[in-house]
């Protein structure tokens, strides 16, 4: 056994939702800031010490940008950048949890967690396929981009040349993937078993508790 701690995927989803509420409740900066620090600590505990440090530094840089640089920057630059900066600061907790889950939660665990919540199997299948398909889209985009450069395609034609291969490959992937999945018994109506066993640890409960406390703080402290 390694010494790293883990969070349950269910905790991850709950924390994500709570962070969303915290972000949209728009409280004072210290609530957002301390929640970011606590989540960075969680990242550290889960064995992502380096990214935790990186994320904290980036957060500090964003704050400096927001409160020191943008007020004195020329108007044009200020308008175009401040929305991005604002949004990033507001959404920072969500980003941290998202990254942590992408790094540390295999999709298999995620699916088991959703099954434990008794979501419809149909929904779980589509949801997990969608999550898995994002990297493929990015890769595809890169390839198409290179091909367009090679063939010197410009202007509005680029849109068409981007969309078409994307859609065709989406349909082909759907065919291939379903052939593979059907062979592995995706349409078998019997309840699925799993090697993965999920348990909520003390860490999970502590973090869920803290999440609720911060939601409370975010709503009542303005």
């Amino acid at each position, binding site marked *: 056994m390694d010494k790293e701690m883990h969070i349950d995927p269910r905790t991850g989803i709950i924390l994500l939702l709570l962070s*969303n509420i915290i972000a949209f409740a728009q409280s004072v900066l210290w609530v957002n800031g301390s929640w970011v620090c606590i989540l960075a600590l969680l990242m550290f505990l889960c064995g992502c010490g380096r990214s935790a440090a990186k994320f904290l530094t980036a957060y500090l840089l964003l704050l400096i940008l927001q409160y020191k640089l943008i007020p004195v920057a020329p108007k044009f630059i*200020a308008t175009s950048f401040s929305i991005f900066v604002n949004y990033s600061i507001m959404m920072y907790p969500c980003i941290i949890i998202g990254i942590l889950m992408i790094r540390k939660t295999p999709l298999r665990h995620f699916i088991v967690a959703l099954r434990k919540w008794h979501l419809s199997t149909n*929904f779980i299948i589509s949801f997990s*396929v969608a999550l898995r398909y994002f990297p493929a889209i990015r890769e595809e985009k890169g390839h198409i981009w290179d091909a367009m450069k090679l063939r010197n395609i410009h202007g509005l034609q680029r849109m068409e040349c981007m969309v078409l291969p994307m859609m065709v490959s989406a349909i082909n992937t*759907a065919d291939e993937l379903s052939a593979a999945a059907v062979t592995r018994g995706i349409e078998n109506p019997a309840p699925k078993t799993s090697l993965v066993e999920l348990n909520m640890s003390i860490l999970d409960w502590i973090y869920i508790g803290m999440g609720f406390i911060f939601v409370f703080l975010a709503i009542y402290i303005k």
Partner: protein
Amino acid sequence: MTATTATTSQKLKGKDLITAGIFAAIYFCVFMIGQLLSALHPVLWILFPFVIALLAGIPYYLLCAKVQKPGAVFIMGMVTGLIAVLSGQDSVIEGITFLIGCSMAEIIRHATKYSSFKGNMIAYIFFSINAVGSPLPIWLMREKFFAKISTLGMPADYINTLDALASPYMLIVLFAAVIIGAVLGSLIAKGLFNKHFKKAGIV
């Protein structure tokens, strides 16, 4: 006997679900593009659903052509909605508009028997309501919304323009724009279908 075979073939199978999942991912990417564009100007921020309706027609119609069964469009929309809400793209209000839009589209598709272009187009107009939840907080909780974005330090210009634009009258324009965008998006998709996808033997 025939009735039972008809109902079993109407059930979503593994392949249909995978197709819906893949198009949900593409639909979400369309949302990301829209969000990036909306940072350019307040008008684009308000007319965000118009942009989405214009762009999302192609994945929507491909799914419609591929899976002519109840529930496919609903699952595609709700998966995207859930990812959008979880990833912090949008508020819970958007989750609700997703639920409304997808359910309406599904009902219309059911009523028009899934295969006709006109039926799918009307369903697409309702499906485009999905994105309305993004600018809707401006009208639903106006003071709170503007207080919020100004404490965030959003530039005063942007806020003032947004405030001036977001009259109750604009809300009507918004819904009209959604309908126009959905119709235009449908026509774009139909054009591409005739030009390419039919030749490629995909639909």
